[in-house]
């Protein structure tokens, strides 16, 4: 959370991490939920040596990807909830709020760093951009 507050160009910090709690729905904000592995504080049940570890991005690209990771995660966790609770209107509204933010952020990432998906706009560039580094499993 510290590295989020310190990130100089953070347009998204406000959206995804400006409080630790979404009071309307009793949820974590996306970044806090992401590092806990769940958006629902009531379901957080850590092992004795579990703790939420702050993400330590290595560069600006990784930092922006972390915002995408956090919003994607929020959408995944709300998605599973909505599968079983399809008539929760508040949660559906929140899902759509995160989904919209995520789509905007992915577009910006795609134009700066290349495609995350084979539907990315940056695939119109020459030469073919999909096979550029980094692959997700590589760290050197």
């Amino acid at each position, binding site marked *: 959370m510290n590295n989020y507050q310190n990130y100089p160009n953070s347009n998204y910090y406000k959206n995804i991490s400006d409080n630790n709690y979404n009071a309307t729905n009793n949820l974590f904000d996306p970044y806090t939920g992401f590092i806990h592995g769940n958006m629902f504080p009531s379901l957080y049940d850590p092992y004795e040596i579990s703790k939420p*570890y702050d993400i330590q991005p290595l560069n600006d690209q990784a930092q922006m990807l972390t915002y995408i990771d956090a919003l994607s995660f929020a959408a995944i966790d709300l998605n599973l909830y909505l599968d*079983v609770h399809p008539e929760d209107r508040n949660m559906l509204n929140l899902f759509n709020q995160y989904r919209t933010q995520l789509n905007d952020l992915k577009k910006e990432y795609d134009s700066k760093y290349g495609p995350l998906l084979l539907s990315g706009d940056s695939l119109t560039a020459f030469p073919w951009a999909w096979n550029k580094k980094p692959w997700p*499993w590589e760290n050197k």
Partner: protein
Amino acid sequence: MWIYEKKLEYPINIKRKDTAMARYLFAQYGGPDGELAAALRYLNQRYTMPDERGKALLTDIGTEEMAHVEMIATMIYQLSDDASIKEFEAAGLGGHYTQHDHALFPTDTNGVPFTSAYIEATGDYWADLESNMAAEQRARVMYEHLMNETDDPDVLAPLSFLRQREIVHYTRFKELRDYYISKYKRNT
């Protein structure tokens, strides 16, 4: 169909080689309660779920488990990519080196190859969902054992994340199971 997204669900950046830990993580790769077994279990069960809630939940958790397979593979790869033959042998991975070199290959931690015998699919939602609840609990315990075997925060962070996902999946399966029992007036 499925669409590949060129990122992990949770970032993994392991700097310290640990061939023994790589070996232990195979439990979650190709073991009976590992992520691959979970993904295939749910993605096979979804066809015979009795309503839209079940078809959606099994599809979506099964899909997330595929992302967890990728995370476990990434951890194994980063922990052992630089390991020498001697280090593979010392970690009990000499047999893995002989057959697979540094390649990823789904086995359990003792080198037993993955088998579809690990996948339960009975065609009965009640049996399948309770089986899934138990599978999520077994996977949670295995993550705790794995966390006991390392002190590297680069490894503990993704393990901590994955362990909590087992708890969330357990809860959603249980909610679906309870909903069906009430909806279909099953006598518990």
